């Protein structure tokens, strides 16, 4: 149903969706009906007129109004024509007075009109008599007088309707095939999105009990846990959003983010059109940000994790629950399940994924060492400013000689607060390529509120 509401009338056009719409790229409609209300607020309501009809009658009305308006507009040129002719002949005055007398003759003269026909006749400069023809009702009478604004509004509504109408294509012969391809893609995305939103809710639930979760951090037996706990600023721990926690809890598990992955249990197949690596979230992003990103530690062949996730729904539920004990049990399962997968370690595949095309595409003057560009690329693929963020976020990243992150220092409180929205990798993760001089490097990372990423080398 479309509704057009200029000030002095209301046009409603209703239609049924044809069942053929399923197979077309756009809706296909049938049974078009219209309801036109000439409801000028400056008129008393009892003078309002209501008309309705079918598509053919609407087209008739539209055609009549358009033809009339065009003829009306062309009238102005009668004055000019005469003037021009007579100016040429040296008699301007006669030209001008003569032309104004000819106006009004450009409309179809009063002819025997079929009673069923819709038509318009001028009545002075400002009046326009609309013969309603078949649209006439008892209340409306057969002719209604429109003033110029009413005519204008009616013409505008009919114009807008006709523009909309043209955007509803008739079903093309092969259209339904293309429609089906899109439909499959759209269905896959819809399923993934539904899965994301459902699991996002679960994860948000579990973030509601930070105090319950925080103590479990200290219970980690691995020394890696401790290292991670001290590296990340306290404000992050306090927030204790699930992706952060789970990542910290699984230092020895490929930090591809398999645990947050659990938040997307329904994503079974990689979406078409994604890069070669399947869409996996980085460990620290919330699910809604992550579906389309390529992980920095992208190891080709990651689909095994996805299917692994799908095979162990029990684990996913436990990780997502808010109880501390459930968390531990789930983590244990996670560790077990992920163990068979090749540890990400220092796999050359991961680094080459980074080195590959990224550098060439992204060079700036700040790229004193190639790792700066790599850092920038990594974050450009991930950084999506959250709503409500009003300041840029800044971090000082210390890279270890092997290219992993050695230290993350958020600069300013806000940067710490938002760190888990940035896609920041974990300390110790392979991140960029190894540094050539076997020493540390400090890179400043700036993430702006409008989605831009800057990176440059800090002096040591």
């Amino acid at each position, binding site marked *: 149903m479309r509704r057009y509401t200029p000030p002095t009338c209301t046009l409603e056009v209703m239609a049924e969706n044809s069942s053929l719409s399923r197979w077309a790229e756009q809706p296909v409609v049938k049974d078009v009906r219209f309801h036109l209300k000439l409801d000028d607020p400056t008129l008393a309501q009892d003078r309002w007129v209501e008309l309705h009809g079918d598509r053919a009658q609407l087209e008739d009305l539209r*055609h009549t109004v*358009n*033809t*009339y*308006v*065009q*003829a*009306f*507009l*062309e*009238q*102005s*040129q009668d*004055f*000019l*024509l005469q*003037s*021009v002719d007579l*100016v*040429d002949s040296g008699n*301007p*005055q006669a*030209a*001008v*007075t003569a032309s*104004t007398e000819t*106006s009004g003759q*450009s409309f179809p003269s009063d002819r025997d009109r079929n009673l069923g026909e819709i038509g318009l006749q001028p009545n002075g*400069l*400002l009046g326009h008599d609309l013969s309603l023809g078949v649209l006439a009702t008892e209340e409306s009478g057969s002719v209604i007088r429109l*003033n*110029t*604004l009413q005519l*204008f509004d009616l*013409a*505008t509504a009919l*114009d*807008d309707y*006709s*523009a909309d*109408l*043209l955007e509803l294509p008739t079903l093309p012969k092969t259209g339904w095939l293309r429609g089906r391809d899109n439909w499959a893609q759209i269905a896959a995305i819809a399923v993934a999105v539904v899965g994301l939103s459902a699991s996002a809710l679960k994860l948000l639930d579990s973030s509601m009990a930070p105090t319950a979760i925080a103590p479990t951090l200290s219970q980690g037996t691995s020394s890696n846990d401790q290292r991670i706990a001290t590296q990340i600023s306290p404000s992050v721990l306090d927030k204790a959003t699930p992706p952060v926690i789970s990542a910290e809890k699984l230092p020895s598990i490929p930090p591809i983010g398999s645990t947050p992955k659990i938040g997307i249990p329904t994503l079974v197949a990689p979406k078409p059109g994604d890069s070669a690596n399947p869409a996996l979230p980085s460990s620290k992003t919330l699910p809604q940000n992550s579906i389309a990103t390529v992980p920095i530690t992208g190891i080709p062949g990651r689909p095994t994790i996805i299917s692994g996730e799908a095979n162990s729904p029990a684990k996913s539920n436990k990780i997502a629950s808010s109880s501390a004990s459930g968390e531990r049990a789930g983590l244990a399962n996670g560790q077990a399940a992920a163990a068979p997968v090749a540890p990400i370690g220092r796999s050359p595949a991961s680094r080459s994924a980074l080195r590959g095309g990224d550098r060439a595409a992204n060079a700036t003057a700040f790229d004193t060492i190639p790792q700066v560009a790599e850092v920038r690329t990594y974050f450009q693929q991930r950084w999506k400013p959250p709503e409500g963020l009003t300041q840029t976020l800044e971090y000082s990243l210390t890279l270890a000689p092997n290219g992993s992150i050695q230290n993350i220092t958020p600069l300013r409180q806000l940067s710490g607060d938002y760190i888990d929205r940035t896609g920041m990798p974990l300390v110790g993760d392979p991140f960029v390529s190894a540094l050539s001089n076997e020493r540390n490097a400090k890179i400043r990372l700036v993430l702006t509120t409008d989605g831009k990423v800057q990176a440059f080398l800090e002096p040591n």
Partner: protein
Amino acid sequence: MPPDLKPLTSNNIKAFPPTTAPQPEQLDNIKAQIDLVLLALEALTGIGSEAMLQAAIDLNLESMVSDRVALWRLRQSSPLRKGQGGRKKLDVEEARALVLISCHLAKQQHELIRRAVALLEQVTEQQRQPHQTALLGDYLDKFNNTYQERMEAGDAVSPETLMNLALKLLIDLLFYSAPHGFRRMWLALLDRTKPR
């Protein structure tokens, strides 16, 4: 016969390729009409050449209407204008540019134009003279003065005739200020099929 106005796929300029070459007398007409529509806009709204040049920029038409002199020359092509030896040419592309500019400006001034037409209807219903309202009185005065200043036959035209012309153009502006205004104006200019 007035044209059968079929719905067009788009209201943008691409739907109107400049392949329809108007006849010479059509072109005279077009030149005059465009100049008058712009004159009416100037008289009603007070906008001048700066606004027209800005519209040219907004519509990516600077190549055709680059500065005040260029704009003046195009408008000066109207056969009604005084002070010219030969006729200046206005090609179809330039005409189209001016029409686009006119409708763009009219659209910007839609509220004012609508108010003026509403006022005109009101005074007519009350059987008063348009001059008796400030908005319409100013408009008519400015239209009169500028017309007489610029046009060859200016002084020879009776005030009543000029008033009718001004009011007619005011209503035309209303239609040109609508979203599909360009199409209306362009087609009105091009259609010369009716007998004279």
